[in-house]
């Protein structure tokens, strides 16, 4: 995992720089559909923030509001202290964006696209861009219309990374990339992070988020249901404990934090939230052969939040 620089950004640091992303009570309704409800986010400069959720949870809606492409029904979103709707163009001067679906000009070549995007954005590190073209193995003389989806995705990524913008907003940036390019992508995000750039990574690829992000927010049906560093999320979530006994397992009394007990022939499997002390106290009186305790993976935390929810529901 990436070094945990995950300072919880509760607000603008006193006397320092305003938060890279800050939303307060952000809501977006499309007619009857509630796409986003009461979102409060605060992401400090330099943070790599993973924004998790299944399709239709409201990830892209959040990003569209942050970029001023759609207008909030209520609440506000600020990028580096600037209102993303009213002062959108100034706010976006410090932002680079990669869309989930690459929409570019089919008649331009990749190199022409880079030139155009650089002119529109205003700042571009040309040497770094050339390096990225190498790294992602992109044939930049090709026209966009002749490129596959994955390659068009690379064009967007390279254009965004080459701006060296203070804030990278990435919406499922690796959809369409092969595993080799996925490695190149992670390397590039780590480079950006090492330079102090902020990264907002919307994704549903949990391994990617686990590998890159300091802090994670989990979105469900337009609401932020959990947020914190991976360590915090793990601490709050139940860990799985398996105990093997010399003989049949004893009857477990009611203990705080223990749930979902399954008894095997001579074993117990249970979920434990909170401290392990009371459980150990009880087990000490029984012939325990072995005990394993495993921390939940991000996948388990994620699935935990979606337990019993029909995640296939679109927005």
């Amino acid at each position, binding site marked *: 995992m990436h070094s945990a620089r995950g300072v919880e950004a509760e607000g603008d640091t006193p006397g320092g720089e305003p938060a890279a992303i800050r939303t307060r009570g952000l809501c977006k309704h499309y007619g009857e559909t509630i796409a986003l409800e009461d979102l409060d986010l605060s992401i400090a400069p330099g943070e790599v923030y993973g924004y998790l959720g299944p399709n239709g949870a409201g990830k892209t809606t959040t990003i569209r509001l942050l970029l001023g492409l759609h207008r909030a029904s209520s609440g506000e979103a600020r990028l580096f202290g600037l209102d993303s709707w009213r002062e959108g163009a100034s706010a976006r001067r410090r932002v680079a964006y990669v869309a989930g679906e690459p929409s570019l000009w089919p008649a331009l070549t990749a190199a022409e696209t880079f030139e155009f995007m650089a002119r*529109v954005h205003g700042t571009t590190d040309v040497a770094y861009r050339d390096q990225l073209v190498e790294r992602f193995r992109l044939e930049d003389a090709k026209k966009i219309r002749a490129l596959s989806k994955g390659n068009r995705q690379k064009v967007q990524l390279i254009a965004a990374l080459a701006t060296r913008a203070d804030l990278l907003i990435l919406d499922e940036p690796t959809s369409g990339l092969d595993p080799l390019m996925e490695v190149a992508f992670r390397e590039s995000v780590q480079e950006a992070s090492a330079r102090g750039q902020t990264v907002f990574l919307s994704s549903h690829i949990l391994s990617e988020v686990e590998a890159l992000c300091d802090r994670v927010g989990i979105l469900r049906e337009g609401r932020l249901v959990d947020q914190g560093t991976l360590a915090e999320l793990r601490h709050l979530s139940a860990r799985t404990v398996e105990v093997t006994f010399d003989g049949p397992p004893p009857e477990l009394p009611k203990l705080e934090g223990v749930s979902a007990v399954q008894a095997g022939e001579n074993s117990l499997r249970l979920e434990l939230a909170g401290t392990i002390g009371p459980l150990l106290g009880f087990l000490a009186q029984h012939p325990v052969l072995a005990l394993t305790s495993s921390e939940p993976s991000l996948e388990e935390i994620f699935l935990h939040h979606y337990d019993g929810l029909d995640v296939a529901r679109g927005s």
Partner: protein
Amino acid sequence: MSPAAARAIAGRVLRDGRTRTGSFALLFGLVAYANAAGYASAYPTLKARLGFARSFADNAVFRLFYGVPRDLLTVGGYSAWRIVGFFSIIAAVWGLTASVAALRGEEDAGRTELVLAGPIGRGPAFATTLLAVLAGGCAIWLAMFAGLLASSLPAGESAFAALATLSPAITFLGVGALAAQLAASRRVAVELASALLALALLLRILADTASGLGWLRWLTPLGWTEEMRAFTGARPVVLLLPLAAAGALLALAAGPARRRDIGSGLLRAPDSRRPRLRGLASPLALALREERVSLAIWLSAIAVYGAIVGALSTSLNSTDIPTALQRELHKLGAASITTPAGALGFYFLFFTLAACLFTCGQVAAARREEAEGRLETLLAQPFGRLRWLAGRLVITCGGTAAVALTAGITTWAGAAAAGAGVPLWRMLEAALNCLPVALMFGALGFLAFACAPRAAGGLAYGLVSVAFVWELFGSLLGAPHWIVQATPFQHVALVPAQPFRLAAAAVMIAVALAGGLLALGAFERRDLAGQ
């Protein structure tokens, strides 16, 4: 291919084309009815019709748009001349756009690949698609037939006249199908097929206006329609020509449709090239770079027709003007169509229409940028949305001015070559005179784009079409004055025949400005809308 699959494909094609087919059917039906009924009421007696016929029969500019009149003394003969000739061009436009959309448009969007991934042969899929397009054509035929019938023309001849009008649609359906195999994108396919239509029209114009070139009529699908002579001694056997041409074109297209790689075209532009860095400096520059081919096509088409109209402006002689004709011309607003200036003033109305349609094209282009997601890519950059829309408005104004100016200059050049003696400044005034109404329709189109983005193109084109059809037929139908006056085209002076109407132009400019500002205001507030 199973019958269920065929039904599904055909149903999809019909549904996708229903707006286009529906609006064309409505247009054909209404115009067929209004025109025939209008003639019958405006020229009720044989004497009135004789006067009309004597003055109009030999006017070359009328021939340019409508073809050769065979018999202007009957309602049928008049309809054959006024509707069949002109609407055969519109039918061809429908045929080529419908088949290109159903074939190349679907392929561009990646849906053809999806369909062909199923247990469906490529030949049958191609044939089913075209049959469904053809079914749409039948709906338009039916509408026109009903329109003629409603104006009390005989059933058999009306059916044939509608068939003759729609026959170029069949040929150009084949042209579109072939262009869809040649070009690798919908846009290029439409441009290729349109170029062929422009050639077909040019041949018909030469055949109808230049003496001794009448045989050229047999070389163009639009000429075939004339040779079918609906209402004036019908020759159904000529129908074999468009059928044979369509058959040959479809046979040519069927081979590549079965064999070529999906997503590619036979005319392949190279996929790679050295970067061309001109026109990348700003979104405005890029929009100009993207639109330059279409702008060049517009300007050259306008230039060719401007020169022809100018050259033909001296063709109407002014021996005697019957009272019925004077009444007719008065209704249309022309002071003296028999002078070159009068003829030019009257025909400049069509260039005004062209300028209006150009602005609609710009609205549609702006919407395409948004629908296909490129606007989102752009506005995620530090680039304000007002600046973007203002840029599109500037391009629209500039392009419209270029269209009008080209029409003015080339018409003057043509007229000067024919010795018409209309000064250049008068034709520049005519060009200027086009602008207020065109910019007004453009601004209203952009207002639609800002308020109802998904319907913007349809609303823009629809508004101009309704207003123009109103202008052409409202007065003939003897509608009350205030209804006739409701179309903006009524308030466009026929420069150079009439003086420029400053007040009307000022009102239209004011509406254009207000529309443009409202569009900017509404666009600033709305969410971007995908497809």
